[in-house]
């Protein structure tokens, strides 16, 4: 028996004037399967919805087409109407006869409107009902890293009740945070003791991730420690592997007492028994890498500190100061008010080492003249780079990196902390150069995102929305290779043949796999080939 389809037309309070609805109703009633055609003027209002429900019940409709405004607005609401009338909410197709028909064209568009309805009727006939189901997820989180971001992410996750494992490659947490400590004024040791006191946090030091398998809610991670290897299960993974710096120097210039990095300079500042206090100090930044904020902040802080502690003469050579972070402009002004000399230059200064003294030669843009500065200490320009661990982990997890090698691709939809795979997040320096304010924001964002996914121990999803037919799948692995969200894996059905298995949890329902499958084995409910081709045939 033919499926009973009901078509509900709405003339939008008689505002759709260039469609002859009476003629349209007559035409639509002729389509096969259409058992009732209703015209109303207020379908999206409560009155209209009520009429719709009673009509669906009275006529025993099995599928519904709504021809009205754009589905962008009310598709969801009409789906609910179907549910109320006892039909599965997915058995609905909308024809956009307002925004994409009546309003987009001059003159009579009855013909087009009828055709749009025909497309929807053809599609709705093939639609399948879909149910929601709850899937369990493991709610323990793996945080990789042992720096500021990692420790604070773990602490905050614990405070919202999620168990966390902190995995650090070094022998102890909080190594290598000296520079940040002096920059931002926090105390690592108290954070580390807070972690140790927290029973929700397990710490694995001298540990490395060897292999990651699975998907959101069920990652299995093989971890190598000194004592051997362990296999643990996690619901989500947060990368907090930080960044590293590298001096941008000509190779013949030997790094020594007179040319130092920002980090070493911090150590000099913190050293109470320094033999000789430097009298003249030069800083250089923003020539080799014009796209980082961190060098600006480090320079401003260190220059101010040097001025205050030693009263040294401080000269800063730079191209543009990066003040687009909170408080940076104030800091810049403070440094100038303190007597730090800022020298803007368009080209990188020349550096020579002569008898233990560093000579900096630069062309100042304001004076338009060459300046030669002889200084005791030069804090050289640093490049801001991703760590090796970041590179290793992202290839282990098979996630994309940006053009500079940091985690997270440059896609606006992934910002701030998401990866293209559900359940894998980035926080802090591993995803780019961030100032303290942004790192703090990142940490809280990641905690929120993880909490949302894992806190209840289960996730509600549409069951088998995208599914590979095991009978047709030839296990060519194409879908596994193309899935941008890593949602497909080979699975063994009943211990036998291996086929593509699409995880309902990890799938974003984009349909890339369905389009590319050479065996046409992948069914994407609501957007199956039949459903798309049926619309084409109606034209």
């Amino acid at each position: 028996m033919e499926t009973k389809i009901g078509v509900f037309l709405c003339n939008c309070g008689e505002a759709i004037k260039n469609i002859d609805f009476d003629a349209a109703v007559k035409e639509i009633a002729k389509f096969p399967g259409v058992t009732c055609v209703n015209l109303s003027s207020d379908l999206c209002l409560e009155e209209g919805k009520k009429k719709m429900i009673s009509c669906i019940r009275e006529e025993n409709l099995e599928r519904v087409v709504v021809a009205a405004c754009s589905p962008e607005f009310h598709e969801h609401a009409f789906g609910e109407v179907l549910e109320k009338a006892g039909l599965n909410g997915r058995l609905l197709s909308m024809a956009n006869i307002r925004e994409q028909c009546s309003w987009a064209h001059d003159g009579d568009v009855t013909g087009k409107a009828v055709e749009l309805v025909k497309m929807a009727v053809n599609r709705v006939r093939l639609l399948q009902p879909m149910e929601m189901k709850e899937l369990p997820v493991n709610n323990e989180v793996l945080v990789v890293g042992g720096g500021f971001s990692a420790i604070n992410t773990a602490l905050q996750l614990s405070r919202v009740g999620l168990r966390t494992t902190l995995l650090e490659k070094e022998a102890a947490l909080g190594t290598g945070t000296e520079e940040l400590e002096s920059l931002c004024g926090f105390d690592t040791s108290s954070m580390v003791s807070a972690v140790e006191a927290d029973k929700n946090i397990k710490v694995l030091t001298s540990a490395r991730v060897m292999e990651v398998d699975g998907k959101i809610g069920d990652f299995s991670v093989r971890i190598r420690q000194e004592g051997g290897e362990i296999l643990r299960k996690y619901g989500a993974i947060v990368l907090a592997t930080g960044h590293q710096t590298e001096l941008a120097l000509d190779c013949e210039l030997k790094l020594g007492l007179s040319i130092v990095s920002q980090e070493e300079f911090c150590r000099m500042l913190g050293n109470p028994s320094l033999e000789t206090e430097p009298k003249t100090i030069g800083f250089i930044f923003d020539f080799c890498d014009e796209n980082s904020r961190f060098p600006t902040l480090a320079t401003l802080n260190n220059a101010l500190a040097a001025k205050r502690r030693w009263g040294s003469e401080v000269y800063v050579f730079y191209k543009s100061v990066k003040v687009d972070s909170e408080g940076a402009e104030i800091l810049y002004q403070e440094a100038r008010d303190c007597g730090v000399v800022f020298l803007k230059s368009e080209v990188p200064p020349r550096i020579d080492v002569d008898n233990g003294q560093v000579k900096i030669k630069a062309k100042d843009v304001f004076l338009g003249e060459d300046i030669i500065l002889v200084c005791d200490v030069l804090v050289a320009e640093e490049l801001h780079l991703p760590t090796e661990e970041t590179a290793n982990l992202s290839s282990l997890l098979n996630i994309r990196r940006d053009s500079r090698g940091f985690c997270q691709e440059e896609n606006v939809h992934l910002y701030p902390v998401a990866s293209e795979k559900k359940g894998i997040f980035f926080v802090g320096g591993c995803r780019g150069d961030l100032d303290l304010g942004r790192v703090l924001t990142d940490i809280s964002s990641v905690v929120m995102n993880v909490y949302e996914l894992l806190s209840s121990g289960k996730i509600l999803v549409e069951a088998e929305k995208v599914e590979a037919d095991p009978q047709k799948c030839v296990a060519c692995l194409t879908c596994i290779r193309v899935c941008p969200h890593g949602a497909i894996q080979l699975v063994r059905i009943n211990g036998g043949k291996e086929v593509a298995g699409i995880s309902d949890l990890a799938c974003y329902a984009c349909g890339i796999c369905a389009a590319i499958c050479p065996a046409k084995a992948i069914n994407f409910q609501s957007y199956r080939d039949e459903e798309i081709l049926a619309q084409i045939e109606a034209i």
Partner: protein
Amino acid sequence: MENKNVLVVGSGISGIASALELANAGVSVYLLDKEAVVGGRSASFCCKATDICSRCSACVVLGKVKEAVTHPRIKLLTNSTMKKLSGELGNFRVEIEQQPRYVDEERCIACGLCTEVCPVDPKAIYPPFAEATPFSYILDKGRCLRFKGERCDLCRTSCPTKAIEFDLKPKEQELRVDAIIVATGFDVFDAREKGSLGYGRYTNVLTGLDLEHVFTRDGYLRLPTNGREPQNIAFIQCVGSRDKDHEYCSQVCCKYAMKLAGLIKYQNPDARVTIFYIDLQTAGKGFAQFYEEYKESIRFVRGVPVEILQTVSGELEVRFEDISQGKVCRDTFDLVVLSVGISPGKNTWDLARILGINLADNGFFDKKDSLSCNETNVDGIFLAGTCQGPKDIPDSIAHGIAAASKTMRVLAESASQRRGH
């Protein structure tokens, strides 16, 4: 987190980000906005893509707005302002005043019949911008004859769904909420304050925001005076940022100026574009390649002009000191765009008084201490987005999510404490 309620003040992108996260975690959210449409300022920004996405994030806002509006756990309170606050974390009582919209957004089906019959020019009842949500019509009390004492009734009687009602009083209601997120956003710096730049006097001097709206509305750029395609365009950076009244960088202007300049160059490769700047802020994810691409084709001049004059022929003469050349120069342009910065919202002070939260020296809401990002001096009140300081769209979203995170934490902690007692 069922049976918890949170009020989010301001439905801009950070407010929406907060509301969505909380709602997805099971919290019921009231999303309050003084305007008639949801989405705040960034919802009306234009797409700045050329052949590739320029990562301005304007489209992200639209997606989030749509999500928020249809979310079952988010209740929208548009046209509403906060009048009074009492109570504390876990038990705030908030008095809300909702101005009548006159057009019922539940009933308005955006058919446009009212605009057709409205006798006033410009029309007193009109649709919001194309991407607005809810897409229901707006009645402008200032233009409407009815509110000038006349008996015009045309729109009301023409409305097929009886969505228009005139005799409405502001509605007052009291909400009980566990926590509050303040996301009231920013105001654009009023370029008229810098009189010498001629904004408001010369038609061809626009602000960056104006330019956004031009692209949103028309999709291309034409000179406001004669409708021709501009060939010689200048962007002036740091208008209302990094000066003695604004001791901060607005963080968005260099990016939007360069992206808009890129869009202009893309649409008209022959156009000459100059950007006058103090320091270029080229940091941030994905911006490096963009800067590299336009480094050559856009002229960057170090030095910000102080004066713009209109010549007899209608061109704009810009006087500036080219620091790299070390001389004072003049140059003429068809169009000058002032890259206006982010200023604290005008109602920030009032709201701070109502909520009892502190303001920072720069006029934005102050956070508790340097190691917090959303907390205020009042427990249970959190900050999200540009009301706390300048931020671009991605940073605002992140800050909004972070505020939701902090809120979630206090709600979770107070729940477990109660269980403990």
